[in-house]
């Protein structure tokens, strides 16, 4: 059925666009981390944990947050995240594994675009 096929194709297209957006967010974040913390760019992957794998401490993370806030025009809710992790309501992986961090950034950018 043509309609079905069109839907499939548009789904694929959406996935493709999403992939592009994701990778571009990741590339920007990885570049920020590499420049801020003097970490070789090629050691930073979407699966890297900012704290456990890359050894970024809280002060360096402030610099990274500042650069991300500026670059994406958002405000990373670091305090909320820290609170959730401390309360056991979230794991550090949800916020500090880079692909997850990038997904959070994309959500914040989308929320901002929607006027939320």
């Amino acid at each position, binding site marked *: 059925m043509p309609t079905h096929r069109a839907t499939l194709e548009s789904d694929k297209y959406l996935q493709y666009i999403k992939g592009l957006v994701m990778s571009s967010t990741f590339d920007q974040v990885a570049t920020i981390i590499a420049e801020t913390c003097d970490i070789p760019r090629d050691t930073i992957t979407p699966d890297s944990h900012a704290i456990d794998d890359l050894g970024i401490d809280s*002060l360096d993370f*402030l*610099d990274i*947050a*500042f650069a991300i*806030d*500026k670059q994406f025009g958002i*405000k*990373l*809710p*670091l*305090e*909320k995240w*820290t609170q959730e992790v401390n309360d056991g309501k979230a794991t550090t992986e949800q916020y500090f594994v880079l692909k997850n961090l990038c997904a959070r950034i994309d959500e914040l950018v989308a929320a901002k675009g929607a006027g939320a």
Partner: protein
Amino acid sequence: MQLEYFHMIDRIVDLNVDEKTIVVEAQVPNASTIFEGHFPGYPLMPGVLLIESMAQASGWLQLGVLKFERMPILAAVKEAKVRGSVYPGDVMSIEATLSHQGSGYAVTEAKIRVGGKLRANSTLTFTQIPFPNADMRGHMDAIAKRVGFPQQAVSP
């Protein structure tokens, strides 16, 4: 200014919480034990104390913007430049602007002028923590009174 107590700021000249700017005044004392060592025969305001002065000006600005709900603590000093010497007796005019208010942290740009001439500038990062205890809060309230913190600027 009482260098030994790290009381760097004498007076808040202007605080604009909407524009996120502040101007404060600080007169370097003519005599201090610090000048006995820094340096004998050539007393000079230490560069780190110029940075501290810019940090404190930035601190009062943040206390105003945050309505005393958090205490800013200096976390990083970037691009600090001492462009000219500051001597005993000099009156420093220090201005600071809040360039970014993040979640639990902030970045400011600060400048020190003496007689209109730029003597130092820096970009400073602060973490903003809940007041750790009532003593510290009381201490900050007392200093706020002494430096003429404009309470009306933070009243709702």
